[in-house]
């Protein structure tokens, strides 16, 4: 057994080393180590020890540790090869649905292209347009294009409809007698989700009394942790849920490994150059989306111009397509072109980026942190996937919690024949962006990052329903239910979450 473990550690280490060598920060790191080797503090006769010491002293050790932290979190996940698909996999239909959804979305993007006579890979931008775009780069709200013929490729409602129509392998025999018993919308999906007990364990740090530490204390802790530059420590600090606003941007950057290096600036400039050089249909969709959402939102409209830049560059970033974990399942039929980023913009995509406007002034800093957050979290919320924190699991978790812990509400919804998920789905899919006021949204996202989990979204959706239970019990239509849940401006995230998790 031990041997086996040993072997697997070696295997992981070997894999890590190989991956590190492919990273962009490998070269500068390697150069720094080379410089250290030549420095007087390293003794040729005791290379191993003195170099290790020198690496520590130069702060490179933390950097290396952070790199490994980020690698282990993301890049080293076992990737399923399409060929390995197991026919008996109970989730096979879900994977297929994911792949089909992806294809459907790309197909409608392509259909839009041919309808509007645009090349699906984009076309060279005509020079007058390029000049205008360039001169208005910092004020893209003044860049006028006719968007009348463009509409979002999909909205939360579309993906919800597909989710609700998912048919698992039928368990015909068992169910026939219970036709009258209403089925959960997601209960047939065999994804593992936590129960409240497990959630309490997962979020136990939130219930520690020391998390009520005074704010001056918290400021000091933030300063110390930031000085240490230690990504796991930064992540841990976010778990308290009372991160002072001034430290949030820096903490998030460490947790997501999104500090901007010189090669990142070059990358950003290339993305910008690509936006200027090619005219792509996603540009129009980006403009349309911002105009439909952030530009009209009294919390975010001031950031309109930054959002245009960020989302245009996002659409051109092929690194995103490489880093995102897509579902794999062999399906027949034609495959369709996707935008360079692999992400087809949907209604509200810019609201994920909008949150970051409260943390970063510079579009570049904003971009890389947003991008990392998108890849790790938002992508799972906006596509059909089998990830334990993907939107399907999050919906399932919501349903199970509601049925177990708010049975009254559950039956109320049942009687009204309203699927409870319908009223909360937009919150979940947008991770509450645009629904909670920014200061509270940031606290919620602190918890996402701190506990590296989207499960807080389901928990929080339940909390809001419980909190407004009395009013909800008194109304009988979807419209009135939505009216009761529309205004979240007075909701305080941290105390409510703490209360809900500590209650018996």
């Amino acid at each position: 057994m031990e041997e086996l473990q040993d072997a697997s550690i070696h295997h992981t280490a070997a894999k890590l080393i190989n991956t590190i060598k492919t990273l962009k920060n490998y070269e500068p790191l390697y150069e720094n180590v080379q410089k250290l080797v030549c420095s007087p503090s390293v003794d040729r006769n005791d290379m191993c020890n003195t170099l290790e010491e020198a690496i520590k002293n130069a702060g490179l050790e933390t950097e290396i540790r952070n790199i490994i932290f980020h690698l282990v979190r993301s890049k080293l996940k076992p990737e399923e090869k399409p060929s390995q698909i197991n026919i008996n996999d109970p989730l096979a239909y879900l994977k297929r649905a994911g792949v089909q959804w992806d294809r459907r979305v790309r197909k409608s993007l392509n259909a839009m292209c041919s309808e509007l006579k645009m090349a699906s890979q984009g076309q060279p931008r005509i020079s007058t347009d390029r000049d205008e775009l360039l001169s208005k780069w910092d004020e893209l709200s003044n860049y006028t294009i006719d968007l009348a013929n463009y509409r979002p490729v999909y909205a939360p409602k579309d993906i919800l409809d597909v989710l609700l129509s998912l048919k698992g392998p039928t368990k015909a025999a068992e169910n026939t007698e219970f036709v009258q018993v209403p089925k959960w919308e997601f209960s047939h999906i065999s994804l593992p989700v936590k129960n409240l007990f497990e959630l309490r364990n997962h979020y136990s740090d939130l219930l520690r009394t020391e998390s009520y530490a005074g704010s001056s204390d918290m400021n000091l802790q933030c300063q110390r942790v930031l000085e240490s530059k230690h990504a796991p420590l930064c992540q841990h600090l976010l778990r308290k849920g009372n991160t002072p606003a001034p430290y949030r941007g820096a903490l998030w950057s460490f947790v997501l490994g999104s500090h901007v290096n010189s090669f990142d600036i070059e990358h950003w400039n290339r993305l910008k150059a690509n936006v200027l050089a090619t005219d792509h249909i996603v540009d129009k969709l980006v403009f349309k989306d911002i105009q439909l959402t952030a530009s009209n939102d009294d919390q975010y409209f001031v950031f309109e111009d930054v959002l245009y830049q960020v989302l245009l560059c996002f659409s051109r970033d092929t690194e995103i397509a490489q880093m995102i974990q897509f579902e794999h399942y062999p399906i027949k039929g034609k495959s369709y072109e996707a935008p360079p980023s692999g992400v087809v913009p949907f209604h509200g995509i810019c609201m994920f980026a909008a949150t970051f406007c409260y943390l970063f002034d510079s579009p570049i800093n904003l971009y890389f942190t947003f991008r990392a957050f998108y890849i790790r979290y938002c992508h799972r919320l906006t596509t059909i996937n089998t990830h334990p924190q993907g939107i399907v699991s999050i919906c399932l978790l919501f349903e199970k919690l509601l049925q177990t812990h708010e049975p009254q509400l559950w039956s109320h919804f049942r009687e009204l024949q309203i699927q409870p998920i319908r009223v909360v789905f937009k919150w979940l899919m947008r991770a509450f962006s645009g629904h909670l006021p920014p200061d509270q949204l940031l606290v919620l996202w602190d918890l996402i990052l701190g506990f590296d989990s989207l499960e807080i979204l389901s928990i929080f959706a339940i909390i809001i329903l419980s909190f407004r239970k009395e009013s909800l019990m008194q109304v009988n239509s979807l419209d009135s239910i939505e009216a009761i849940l529309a205004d979240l401006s007075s909701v305080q995230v941290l105390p409510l979450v703490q209360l809900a998790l500590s209650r018996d």
Partner: protein
Amino acid sequence: MTQESIRRSNASYSNMYGRVNQNMTHERMKVYFCTDLDKSVLVNNFEKRGWSQVSADDDWNFYWAGVQTCRNIFSVDSGYRMNDNQMINHFPNHYELSRKDLLVKNIKRYRKDLERDGNPLAEKTDVNWSGGGCSTRYLYLDFIPVTFVLPADYNMFVEEYRKNPQSTWIMKPCGKSQGAGIFLINKLSKLKKWSREAKGAFHPQIAKESYVISRYIDNPLLIGGKKFDLRLYVLVTSFRPLKAYLFKQGFCRFCTVKYDTSMTELDNMYVHLTNVSVQKHGGEYNSLHGGKWSVQNLALYLEGTRGKEVTDRLFGAISWLIVHSLRAVAPVMASDRHCFECYGYDIIIDNNLKPWLVEVNASPSLTSTTVTDRILKYKLIDNILSVVLPPDGVPDVRWNKIPSADALGNFELLIDEELAAQEEAQNSQQNKNSKSMGGNRWK
């Protein structure tokens, strides 16, 4: 929150935001209100309190009056004498604060008085302009842009102008509002030309209108590349002793067009003026958010991107500015116990995060441009009422005007000289300073 969701929720907002004292059990005096403004944010608030509307000729307890009505009521000729159960929403000579030229005059006098008394607040310092000129400024009381009244101070203006001829100035007619008649000047010759064309506008004897000319804040803080100003609400319940409260839910008003100082844009008022009334006519006006962004969001953004210290300093400086502008007019205000007033403070923040007082309105608009705006103004009126009324909700000038912490709602205490004096007396043995100037409690 999206506008769409607010709209759906507003059906229920009136009961969610109310703070009425519901103890109607004991028999109490019926309150009659009168209003010159037929605004739902007012009437709904009065009616929610069970008050009945009467006309101005009837016996009213609470009058939400226009400034002219108020002046008439207080004029000697009217012969109107208010009783102890009557309140009105203006001080008779509010214009000492709200008229652009008088505000400047009062602040200048206040600083001179402090200087004469050798008060350390009036310390001065020299500012060297890049062109070689040099001006003297107050170190702590330099919170309004240098301003002169025209035509009266024309020569003084020219003298200041010559010290830094590169600077831009903004001309505003004293008697107008909503951006009317405002223009920018960056050459003395342009001012002279304007004076000629306006047919003797500067001739002291025949000038129909006076103007103020102020140094134009040409380095405003830009957010998303756009200029904005702050609209804050300040409630004064007494001038002597001074009792003032700041409403925590102010907002930023954004220009719709990118800020651009190039000379070609000098005449584009959409770039320079942040008034909603001006911006509304711009092509880019968005009626869902109305260019309004909450002060809480501004604070969140500044803390996140600039840090806590500078943000706290900014909001501290804003409170400071408000308190001193009020102190400047306190001696000349008719501090009648029947009166209270809610002022709209217009403040510009420059890119060093220094706030500048632009103007004070005595009748800030109660028109709501958006749903959020309506909720805010409804709450503002509700909170004003709960601060100015004694705990039993019946107007009574004999009340000591010290509201409970609970009654403040979204107001925070800026200054209460009476309370401060009491505290000082209590703490004098311990040699503690009074804490009348509220800290930064904006969130």
